[in-house]
Structure formats: C-alpha cells, structure tokens
C-alpha cells in the first residue's frame, strides 16, 4: 500500500472533527416514563425485524467516519502495490537533463529516479521485455526489449547526468516510435516534467518537489567609452521572491558583487559597469545556494581584437564599395586589379570580376562575377530566374533569402568546392577550401541582380564578413551545452587544440579543417590554441546552459503536448490507484447514510 499524494492524509483531521460534532449533536429531550419494560419490548421487536438495528445506534457516525476516511484515501492517492502478472513490455524512460540534477530530492532527482527505476525493474515478472531510454538533448535508446535483469540494471545505471535540456519533441517521437513497435508496451517515465506520447498512456513518476531556483539565463556585454558594461538577467523560477548574491569575475579575478531581489516567477536584470577592457572572459555567478547549482553560472567572451582588414579588388562596383564602407569595425580598402602588386596583408579579399593566378594565403576570398581562371572552369552565360533560398550561413537573418538573377556564369564545379545554390545543375554560389584558404564564389555580376537594392544585401555582406574573415574562426558565440562547435581556423594553421574548463587538452587539428568539436557538455570557458608554424594564437569560447528562450521552448512544448491532459498518469512504484472507486464508495455511503437518517426509528 502506498499514497501518490500523501499530503492528502491531512484530511484525516476531519475524523476527530466528525466525532466531536457527533458528540455535540442535537440534545435529546428527557421524558420520564413509568418503566422501560414496554419500551424495551418495542426495541426488541424492532431489532428482531431488522437484526442490524442494534448497530444502528451509532450507524450514522460510523457511516460518516467511513465516508470521510474514503474521501481522504482518494485524495491521498491511495494505491496498492500490484505485481505485474503479465510479461507486458515496458519502456523505462529516464530523464537525465540538467534539471534532474536538482537537489530537492536527495541526493539528486536523477539518482532518485534511477533508484526507483531499479526498484521497479526488480518488481517486474521474469521475462518482461524492457527498453531503457535516456532522455536529454538527444534522446537515446540504451537497451531495447531485453529480458535480462542484469542488462537492464546496468543500462539504467549507465545513465549519467547531462547539462542539457530535454528535447521534448524528439523524446515524444522516440517514445512514440517505440510504442509503435511494441503496441502493448507500458511507458514509464521517470522525470521532473510530464511528457505526452501521442495519445498513449504514460505512467509518470514525478521528481519535481519544489521549484525554488534562481538562474542566470542571459549574460552579455557591450563596449562603452569607459570600459565594458556587462548585463546579467536572473530568473526566479520559484513561487517566492528570492534575495540572492551575484558576482562578476573577469579572467578568474573578482570584479564586483551585488545583492539583488528577484521577484517570484520573474526576472531581474543586473548591470555591471566599468569592467576593464583588458579582460578576455567574463563569468557571472549566483553565490546563493539553491536546488540547482549548474544554472547559477554564465560565461561570456570579450573580443576586442584588431579590426578586420578587407580588400575590395574591382574595376568599379558601386554597390560593393558602398556596402563595405558603411560597415563598422572593419578596415576597408578598395583597389583596381592593375594597381595591386601582391595579394597579401588582408583578412578578407573581395574580388569582383578578377581572379588571380594564385589565391592569397593569409586571408579568405570572396569572388563575384568570376572570369576564366586556373582554379575552376568558367564558360559562357545562362539565363537564371529567381534563386534561393538556402540554409547557408550567409543567408542567416534574411527575411526573404531568394533574389532575382538575370544570368549566371556557366561553371564547372571544382572538386574542392561545395555548391550552396545551383540552377539546372549549374552552381550559382559555391564555396570551398584551397589549402587553408576559404573561397566563396558568386557566379554572377551583382549589377545584373536585384540583390543590391534589397534591404537584405547589407545583412548578407555582414554574414559573409562574420563567416569568412579569418578571426571569425575563433569568434564562437551562443554555444550551449552539448552543441557541436565548428571551428574555422586561421589560414595557415597546422595544429590546433582546445582546453576544456576542467583542464583537459583535446587536439582538433590536424586534420584541417577540423571535425566539429562535440565535447561541449560542460558549461564554462574553453581555450582554443592555434599554431600556424610561425606563431601561436590563443582565443576563447564559452559554453553556457541553454538560455531562457530555450527553456520557454521546452515549457511550450510541454504545454503543446498537453502534459496534463490525462494521458500522463501519476505513477509511483508499481501500483494500482483507487481514487475513483474510493470516491464512488464514499458517494454510495453518503447515500446510505442519508437513507438511514431519513428512515431512522431511533438513533
């Protein structure tokens, strides 16, 4: 026997209350009679007519007490442990997301969930096929339909705490697909939030006991004349206002601390001014302890390096000249092809209708309107209608990424290149890598497109600058735990490595370009070391927990999936709930009590 909601037992206090009320019930009028002899005969006659009359004296009290107890049991989620007598397949889904590391359930929610899951497995009849699913950012099936208790136990035990949020949609899809494969399977969810799986029944063991947690959900900075101003946004997820101490560190040195009150279920912005320009990394931390420590930290990197040097080589292109000249933070130079002696000394070369015999090695190259050259075959022209859109990074933030092109060069895509946009098999925009130099080619003259007159044009150029200036290779931002990082190393780099927050050194190059870096499970400051055989460069990137927006997405997903629409049934151990039968029984007893009262002969 157990109780799903034990606090409902508080209702038992109604029992003494009923007894007191019963004692204090209506006073009977005293009437003196000559003898009880005749009355006792009457009572005996009545008892003979209804043998249970003897009990009836206090029957109403008993019925009221019974009714109260039944209601209390129903509210308490009275349940009986019921052994599973069939070998119904079971899918055990354990949530290992960040929130499961909360300590409101000791030692942590995840530890408690794993322990309960192990206990549950122990109660299953032998031979029950069990599937174990680990739910986090990338839900994963650890074990499929195994009836080996040892395997199941080992699989559950292997689940480790992650610092990501659960992708609810993927979790639902995965569980739904498992359910489709085993239609009679019972899904048992050990988590701190309900997840609906289509219209399937989910037994939900909830580990969220309280939500008193304050987190740093946003942390960024901006340059001011007098230094750096940083901004932290704190969010209180609890139902009470919370006063917390929050501190700012720069390059591991203490800078400032503030005591702030964060309203319940609200946010509070904390400003940090006069942060020295010399710092390269910032760390904001909530010093006040709460149930979840991981989200008390947020990190940021400060990029205050030299401006990007851009060289535009063209015989004359008003649009390109204009757009680069208005972009702040770059050092822009325009030259005629004939005036340029050597392609050297710039971070980004923009070539309009010009292609040198040898691409520069110290910067990346963007080519517009390519002419025949030694690097790829360029033929005549072909008419091209509207092109795009594309998911490529240069089209990021564009409201309408498609644009009209009058004609494009007929180009044979070289082996080193990847097509970004093509028309009838002809690459219109493509990119590639020659040695360590990145080449981006637009196979048309922008004068023959509507691109320059569109509002998206400066944004696209800005995207190109961000992506193809060599420094962008290390200017990595917005990385959240578990998210892979794609490095664009500086041209000429032959060796690179990453030092993680816990001090591990992980080599990422060679090969060049490096594979995506996936060891971002730990939030913190990561150091990137690049060696181009001449000198070594050092840069940083930070990994934070998913931000508030992502949390809201998760919550929305929960809402959309209707986490409480009845298909997610509270579950604790292997039990059978009796809420409804108990309530019906209470109602029945209430009716009987009323009947007895209405038909009472004597009390």
């Amino acid at each position, binding site marked *: 026997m157990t109780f799903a909601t034990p606090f409902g037992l508080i209702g038992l206090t109604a029992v003494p209350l009923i007894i007191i009320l019963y004692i204090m019930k209506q006073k009977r009028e*005293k009437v*003196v009679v*000559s*003898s*009880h002899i005749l009355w006792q*005969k009457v009572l005996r*006659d009545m008892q003979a007519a209804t043998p249970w009359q003897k009990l009836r004296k206090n029957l109403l009290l008993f019925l009221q007490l019974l009714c109260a107890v039944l209601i209390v049991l129903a509210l308490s989620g009275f349940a009986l442990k019921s052994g599973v007598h069939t070998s119904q397949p079971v899918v055990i889904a354990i949530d290992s997301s960040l929130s499961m590391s909360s300590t409101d359930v000791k030692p942590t929610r995840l530890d408690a969930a794993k322990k309960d899951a192990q206990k549950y497995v122990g109660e299953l009849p032998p031979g029950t096929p069990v599937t174990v699913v680990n739910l986090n950012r990338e839900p994963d099936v650890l074990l499929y339909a195994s009836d080996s208790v040892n395997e199941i136990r080992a699989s559950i035990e292997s689940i480790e705490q992650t610092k990501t949020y659960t992708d609810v949609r993927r979790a639902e899809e995965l569980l739904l697909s498992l359910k489709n494969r085993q239609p009679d399977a019972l899904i048992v969810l050990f988590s701190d939030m309900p997840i609906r799986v289509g219209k399937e029944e989910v037994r939900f063991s909830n580990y969220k006991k309280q939500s008193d947690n304050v987190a740093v959900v946003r942390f960024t900075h901006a340059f001011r004349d007098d230094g750096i101003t940083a901004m932290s946004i704190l969010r209180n997820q609890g139902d009470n206002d919370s006063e917390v101490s929050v501190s700012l560190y720069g390059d591991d040195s203490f800078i400032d601390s503030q005591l702030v009150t964060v309203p319940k279920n609200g946010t509070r912005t904390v400003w940090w001014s006069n942060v020295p320009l010399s710092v390269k990394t910032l760390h904001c931390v909530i010093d006040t302890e709460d149930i979840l420590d991981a989200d008390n930290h947020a990190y940021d990197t400060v990029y205050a390096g030299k401006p990007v040097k851009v060289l535009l080589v063209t015989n004359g292109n008003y649009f390109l000249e204009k757009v680069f000249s208005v972009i702040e933070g770059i050092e822009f130079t325009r030259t005629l092809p004939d005036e340029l002696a050597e392609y050297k000394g710039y971070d980004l070369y923009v070539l309009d209708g010009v292609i040198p015999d040898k691409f520069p090695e110290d910067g990346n190259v963007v080519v517009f309107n390519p002419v025949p050259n030694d690097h790829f075959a360029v033929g005549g022209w072909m008419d091209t209608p509207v092109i795009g859109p594309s998911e490529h990074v240069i089209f990021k933030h564009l409201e309408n990424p498609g644009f009209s092109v009058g004609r494009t060069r007929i180009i044979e895509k070289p082996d080193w290149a990847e097509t970004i946009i093509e028309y009838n098999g002809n690459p219109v925009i493509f990119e590639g890598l020659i040695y360590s130099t990145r080449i981006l080619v637009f196979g048309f003259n922008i004068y023959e497109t509507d691109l320059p007159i569109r509002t998206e044009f400066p944004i696209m150029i800005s995207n190109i600058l961000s992506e193809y200036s060599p420094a962008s290779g290390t200017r990595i931002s917005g990385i959240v735990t578990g998210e892979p990082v794609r490095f664009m190393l500086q041209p000429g780099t032959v060796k690179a490595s990453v030092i993680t927050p816990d001090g591990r050194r992980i080599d990422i190059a060679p090969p060049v370009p490096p594979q995506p870096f996936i060891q971002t499970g730990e939030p913190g400051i990561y150091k990137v070391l690049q060696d181009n055989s001449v000198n070594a460069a050092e840069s940083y990137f930070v990994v934070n927990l998913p931000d508030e927006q992502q949390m809201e997405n998760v919550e929305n997903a929960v809402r959309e999936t209707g986490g409480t629409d009845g298909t997610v049934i509270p579950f604790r151990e292997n039990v059978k709930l009796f809420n409804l039968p108990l309530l019906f029984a209470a109602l029945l007893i209430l009716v009987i009590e009323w009947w007895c009262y209405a038909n009472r002969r004597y009390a």
Partner: protein
Amino acid sequence: MKIIDNETLKKIQKLAIKTGLKIDSHAAGNRKSLSKGSSVEFSDFREYSAGDDFRRIDWNAYGRFDKLFVKLYMEEREAPVRIFLDTSLSMNYGEPEKITAAKRLAAALAYISLNAYDRVYINPWNSMVQGTFGPYSTPYSFIKAVNALEIIENRGESNFTEALRKMEWKTGRGISIVITDGLVEGGLEEGLKYLRYMKQEVYLCHILSPQELAPELDGALELVDIETNDIIEVTASGELLDMYEKSLKRFLNNIKQQCKKFGIRYTLLQSDMALEEMVLKVAG
C-alpha cells in the same frame, strides 16, 4: 393527602350496598351471611375493636384478662381481605398519578369489605412487602385504613413474586386484592400463582395511566425509567408508537391470560377513571 372526601365516601356507601366482593364457595365457603344467627359452633376469640357488636363480648374473658374479647363462631368468621398495593415508583407516574387512583380504590374496597365485617389488611409492596396495616374489621376502623393509606409512600422498584415470598402469612384462605400497574420486574405470573397456592381468591386491579395506554411522544427523546433512572434514546415516530401499541396489547393480553389460567378476576383500570366506575368494574 386526602384520598377520600365525603362526597366520594357517600358514593362508596351506596356502592357498598349494591356491591360486594363475590367469593367463590371453594375459596372461602365459610364467609357467612349475618342473618344466619348465632346457633353455630364457637370458633375463636378476638380482641374487641370499635364497632363490634357488644352482645358478642365475652364478659368472662373480660373478667379474667381485663380485656374485651368478642366471640367468633365458625359460620361467622370473617374472610381476611388483603389489599396488596403496589407502591413502587412507577405508580407515581401518570396524570393523574396511578398511586392516587390505586389508594382511592384500595380505600373503597376496604370500606366495602369492612361493611361486610371482613378483616382488612393493607400490604404495600415494592420489591418486598413494606409491612402490614390492619387488620381492620369494623366499618368504624375504615378511617384508620384511610389514614394508613395516606401515609404510605412510594419508593423503589417492584418485584411482586419476591415480595410475596418474603411475606409472613398468618391467615389462611381469604381474598387478595392486588392493585398494580403490572410493570413489575419478573412479571406478575409467579406472584399470582403463589397467591393461589396460598388459597387466596385473587382480584387483580391493573391500573395504567392514559399516558401509558396512549403515549403522546414526538421527536428525539431520552426515556428515563422512573424507577431505575436508566435511559433509552428513541426517536418517536408514528411507526414507533404503532410498535408500542402492539407491545402494550401483547402485555395486557399476557396478563389476562395468566389471570384466566389461575382463576383470577382481572380488571383493567385507567388512572383517570372515576372511583365509582373503578369500584363497579372491580366489585360490581
């Protein structure tokens, strides 16, 4: 308490002429008629009391004992009339109280008996006989009997059989008039049987109050037993009162059957009846 006033007494005198306790020959066949004279065998003496015929005083005995004795003859010997008056607390119940009606009836019956020159004993009883008042043997001693009845107090519970068995009997055959409400622990049957065993011609005067015969109760009540103070909780309703009526009928029929079985004259009386009506019912 005046249980008999002059008006009532006059009525009883008239009734006494018309009525008399009918004694079966086999019970007291020697209860005589006064007109049969003195030619019969001498039987006994007894001390003179007011109202005795002077002619029967044995002056020789007076000479010897300095006390007046009257001669009794076999055919003149009075029938002893014992009035067993229930004085348990239950008799205090009713409007009017049953005990009042019972005492008035007892007085009336005593008067009738004394007018017939019977010896009258009054035995109040509850769980035991509370002494014997009398004998009263002449009409003039009626006032003594009335005084005795007036000072009798009601108390305790009633147990007729126990009371009779503990009683010391000095008389033989006779008349026993039992005045009770019948609400007696252990019932009346054994007691009545005992009286018959003691060769008594028995009159059972069963007095109940109107409140007992047709109780008017309603609602949630605590019924307090006047004798034991025990409490029974009832919620009086039409159904409950119907059951009571049935129970009462069974109770009365049971007593009637017992009386019939033992040859006892049974009369059911109601405490609010006029005395004449009661006397007529009992001795008419």
